[in-house]
């Protein structure tokens, strides 16, 4: 499955547009990570726990989007976009969406 955030896959032609595909996860923060964040908020620096959390969450959202595209029998997803929304205090939804297409 080819995944790009450009509108077309460069060098290939779109034969058929299958439609919008999406994937999302909602992740809550881990208490342990929050405590480490408390120290970092004093001295500054990267919150590695959160970085890993969000990277993993986005990867999962993308996997779900790719699974949807596979169900539609597409072989590429173009114009992928990501959004993040705070759902409740301490939880965020990560959403990935794009257009599933068949390319030659």
């Amino acid at each position, binding site marked *: 499955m080819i995944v790009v955030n450009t509108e077309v896959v460069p060098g290939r032609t779109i034969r058929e547009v299958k439609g919008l595909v999406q994937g999302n996860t909602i992740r809550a923060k881990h208490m342990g990570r929050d405590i480490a964040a408390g120290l970092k*908020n004093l001295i500054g620096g990267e919150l590695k726990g959160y970085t890993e959390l969000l*990277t993993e969450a986005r990867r999962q959202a993308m996997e779900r989007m790719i699974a949807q595209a596979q169900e539609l029998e597409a072989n590429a997803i173009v114009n992928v976009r990501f959004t*993040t929304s705070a759902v409740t205090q301490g939880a965020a939804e990560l959403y990935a969406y794009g257009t599933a297409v068949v390319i030659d």
Partner: protein
Amino acid sequence: MWTLWLQILPVAVLLVLGFCVGTWRERRHFESLAQREREFTDIGVVNLKTVAQPETVASAALVTGDAVIATDYFKSFAASLRNIVGGEVRSYETLMQRARREALLRMLQRARELGATEVWNLRYETSNIRSSGRRTLAVSVEVFAFGTAIVRR
């Protein structure tokens, strides 16, 4: 008089600690960023949407990079004072720069792993990471950079 000092002292200690350690860590981070950016000068990055010369493209793939950076206590405190008079919040400029440059470097690292020489349609997504309400001064930000890495024939 004694009780007044007792109240001010913890905050003052935290401010000094935040300032000293925070500034030192920030300087180290900027040095690290500058050094790593020198290693990626061969990968061209643009935010244009349409890839030039598409007939020479061997493969294209989405690449992403992510960074969550927190600011230190002193900067948060200084910025909250700024809320009283308004204006440019210089304390947070370095925070955003660090997060953006770090996210971009990680994306370029992924592009390098794929053997790409160009990244097109670079986009940034920024989100606020808020702690569960205990300390409202705490500011950390997540920057997510993504683009399409191109490998030429």
